[in-house]
């Protein structure tokens, strides 16, 4: 069967990268005694695919993976078995059965939403002005790893939120398609906010349906 698991990744697990997370899930499935399917060949790989890599240091409320098992197992049972098999900072929030014929999970991701909390106080009005300028711009030429690209079309939503206690934070929805992935740290950098003074959480991955 093909199962889709939604999970949160918090705390210490923010510092576990994409490849290590893959390995972590493989071991968790084994601990949970779930019948993982493996690829054929000389070095069999478990059939686990993560929807979209989460940058190191970010937490997430809604990561998604697809996994293939050699047997049909009720989704509630999958969730129950995984509960005690995961490190404390990963929690399964949903398990569903998926049609085997659906295209690969990674190709279905459209965009992702993020909350960026600022750990140093900022001038809310000033930040609001910078965000407006950014959204008004037709192009936002940026360079990353010696490649230039336009960031503007990757930003779908960008909001500044001022809480009643004065805390200011950002909410964004960025494109996350193959070859067109917006990065929260790039947006923050363009706004003049240093990444070390932020705490970013991915809140949701949005898929085509």
């Amino acid at each position, binding site marked *: 069967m093909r199962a889709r698991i939604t999970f949160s990744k918090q705390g*210490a697990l923010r510092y576990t990268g994409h490849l*290590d997370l893959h390995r972590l899930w493989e071991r968790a499935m084994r601990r949970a005694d779930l019948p993982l399917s493996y690829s054929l060949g000389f070095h069999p790989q478990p059939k686990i695919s993560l929807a979209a890599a989460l940058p190191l240091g970010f937490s997430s409320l809604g990561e998604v993976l697809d996994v293939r098992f050699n047997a049909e197992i009720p989704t509630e049972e999958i969730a129950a078995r995984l509960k005690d098999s995961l490190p404390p900072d990963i929690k399964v929030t949903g398990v569903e059965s998926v049609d085997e014929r659906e295209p690969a999970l990674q190709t279905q991701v459209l965009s992702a939403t993020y909350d960026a909390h600022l750990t140093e106080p900022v001038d809310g009005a000033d930040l609001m002005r910078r965000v407006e300028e950014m959204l008004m711009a037709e192009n936002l030429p940026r360079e990353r790893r010696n490649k230039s690209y336009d960031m503007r079309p990757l930003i779908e939503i960008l909001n500044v939120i001022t809480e009643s206690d004065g805390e200011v934070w950002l909410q964004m929805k960025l494109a996350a398609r193959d070859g067109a992935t917006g990065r929260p740290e790039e947006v923050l950098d363009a706004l003049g906010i240093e990444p070390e003074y932020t705490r970013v959480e991915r809140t949701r991955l949005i898929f085509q349906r």
Partner: protein
Amino acid sequence: MLNPEQIEAKLDRILLKVQKPGRYVGGELNSTLKDWDKAQTRVAFVFPDIYDIGISNVGLKILYDQINQRDDALAERAYAPWTDMEALMREHEIPLYTLESKHALACFDLIGFTLPYETLYTNALNILDLAGIPVRSADRDETHPIIIAGGHSATNPEPMHAFIDAFAIGEGEEVIHDIINTIQRVKGQKSKVDGDLRPSTFDRNDLLLALAQIPGVYVPKFYETTYLEDGTVAHTQPTTPEVPKVVNKRIVAKLLPPPLKFIVPNIEVVHNRVSVEIMRGCTRGCRFCQAGMITRPVRERAVQEVVDAADAAVRSTGFEELALMSLSSSDYTYVNELVDAISKRFEGRKLTVALPSLRIESVSIDLMDKLKQHRSGGFTLAPEAASERMRKIINKFIPDEDIINTTRDIYTRGWTTIKLYFMIGHPSETIEDVQAIVDLSKRVLAEGRKAAGWKVKLNVGVSTFVPKPQTPFQWVSCDTRENILEKQALLKRQLLKDKNIKLSWTKPEDTLLEAWLTRGDRRMAEVIYSAWKRGAKFDAWGDEIKVQTAWLPAFEEHGLDPAFYTHRQRRTDEVFPWEHITAAVRKNFLFQDFRQSLEGQIRMDCRLNCYACGILPTFASLRRENPGEGWKCPEVKSPAKVKSEKLAMVSEQLPVVGGDFCELNW
């Protein structure tokens, strides 16, 4: 002192700037986070190398579980941060903290270092400094944790005597509880003062004195060393009658149930595996091997216990590899039954099983066959020396023909790579003995080619022998740098010509550093301190420049000659710096064994033929009180009476190998 929340807030600022930040955050499955306020005694265990290496240490895992099973104590972990992290921690004034609760190390009652090898010494100093704890024992007061250390290098604790408050000699499973209980007794109950748990007032010296009276615990401050004019030790004696003249190591009568819930790291580390100890101690008596001498007597675990523990541990971790640990797997009494049971239990499950330290004989290939191991992984054998003469000297006697026949068989049965481990620098080694490594390696490969074709490969690992304390070779001189280089040049010249031979070797600087430290005396502490001040750390990582820039200047600063520690044959009547510490194998026995080696005489496995090394009488009453199948030394009749009856009857039971006598003046 920063509290955990403050430490975590600071960490968030720096973690994305370092390599592998996952090393510094904890949160692993099977780690234990207990209620800080409910624990009377808080222990931090430290493996003084990076997380990637330290996380797999089984010894600390055993102790961690022992403490965390108590209601009145908690144990957490810390490792050495890599240099990038250390620089940022110092810049941001973050003290070294534990991974579980993020408390600063200085908040704990007890810090326990494991020191399995000497090249961790400077790291231990660096860790204390990073934790904001005075590096020198003498500079600590009641506000500081008690610093203890154990592990194999504690069999000569003297080079670290100035920095460690107390050493646990031998096995730690029981003594750690004695230490905790003593701390609780002397410190008294903690009480709440201004919402904070405060220990009652106590005197640090009283506590150390109480610790010094626990069997197996050595507290250096209550001992004094005097030296002869030639720089050797005259004697090391207690400065107070309350402590023992000689500290005898501790052992457990029966191996405790093995740990099942290994900590599963969230990042890649060196060993991702479950380790189950099948046997402790070794009866082979290889004269170069410190582990084989200091971990006696042999105690075995039952097959069923090993298999059940392995199964439970594999289930609780999801690890892909299982290592069945011992110093000599082939000597485990029920090794065939074990291998059968393991292959049956894990059939069809994706698991690699490692059964290290197999004897060079065809039976070993049958064992590996049964474990259905990937033949791509290579087959490892350790002849240790390549000439029959030299294998007699080191007491690891195997005829050349056995090596050739076994390796040929391994290639024939489908392994394409064999790894052979040798050492150079054994006592009385000549260049011919080194040439023998070349000749034997080439012969192994040639025979392999005849049997299995041109695809066969050979990896030759050649390390350099370091004479270790508490072994028959503790008297000998270490090989000189020039000799080592010459021998390695010969190996490289002759072995690297064949592209199917891979050769690895140890840098002479690494060997010398280990050799200086392992047989060092108390004066070496100042050298370690100065070397650390001059930037020495991560000495196990092979940075030979540090030898030039830190270690040699440190020796010079203190007017000590490095060659005194390494390149000097000890007098037969020399008092060693570790004379007041014993692993229960008598010096007389070691000396006799050393003399036998010079005569090329070997001693066979001592399971059947007791050579009276001293273990039996030392632990006679422990064994009598805890009889069982696990003990593998020969039975001795009514051990309590042995001493008084002058051992007459025992000596009759003891066969003598090589025509030499067994001295029995226990």
